[in-house]
């Protein structure tokens, strides 16, 4: 038997296996930056806007209670790239969204996560919100 999504092989339901795969990849991307920059957990918590306990879970690879949404928010805040190409905190503040999105091609064994290059298939582009008219 051959698989790419290890969580699926370890008996998680497909939907949970996909979430765990994304979650662990995002947590790893954050952990790598923290390690590279030699940040203490308290400083990392400030940078990411997360409680120190959550940072500790990220660093230790305890991913079962992490939230993808929370991880993504922290990554935008700290300008850490991940699956999608999201705006930096500064450009987001200025109202410029440059983003690309992973196309979730549904596949029984969830291999799409391993084949799709979100940077390549993104629908990136600058989005300028309409000025409010009163």
């Amino acid at each position, binding site marked *: 038997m051959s698989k790419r999504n290890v969580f699926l092989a370890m*008996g998680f339901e497909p939907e949970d296996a996909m979430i765990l795969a994304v979650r662990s990849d995002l947590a790893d991307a954050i952990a790598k930056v923290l390690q590279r920059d030699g940040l203490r957990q308290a400083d990392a918590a400030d940078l990411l806007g997360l409680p120190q306990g959550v940072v500790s879970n990220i660093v230790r690879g305890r991913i079962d209670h992490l939230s993808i949404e929370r991880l993504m928010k922290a990554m935008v805040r700290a300008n850490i790239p991940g699956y999608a190409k999201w705006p930096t905190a500064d450009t987001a503040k200025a109202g410029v969204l440059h983003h690309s999105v992973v196309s979730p091609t549904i596949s029984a064994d969830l291999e799409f996560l391993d084949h799709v290059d979100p940077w390549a298939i993104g629908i990136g582009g600058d989005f300028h919100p309409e000025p409010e008219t009163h």
Partner: protein
Amino acid sequence: MPDRELEFWDGDGGAFLETVRSWPNDVRSAIGADLRRVQRGEEPRNFKPLKGFGVAAAEVRHNDGARVVYSVAFASVSGKVFIADAFMKDSGDGSEMRAADRRRITDRLRQYKAKYNQQQKKNKKQTRQLH
């Protein structure tokens, strides 16, 4: 994103995977996250190298904070991650691998390598026939 495929020992009808599937969610997700790092060619967080197997082998471990250590033994063979075995042990047993576990893993690695070599030979033969 992981680029190495996982291959599981299937000689026992997947019995050892059933063992893994019976482990608690937090154990499986932590070990899974580590194996995902291995797939990317990175070092897992909690692991111990296994020596004397003839290939790069290691076990990823999860200590549940009590006495139980969950362990998955794997080897990196020609760009693939081969998962050979999974077992639990008592943390009081010491860090040495039990002789029976070692024998089983050695045997499975040997069989996997033989299967892999045979596949390589077959591929080469097919390539020759095409020319």
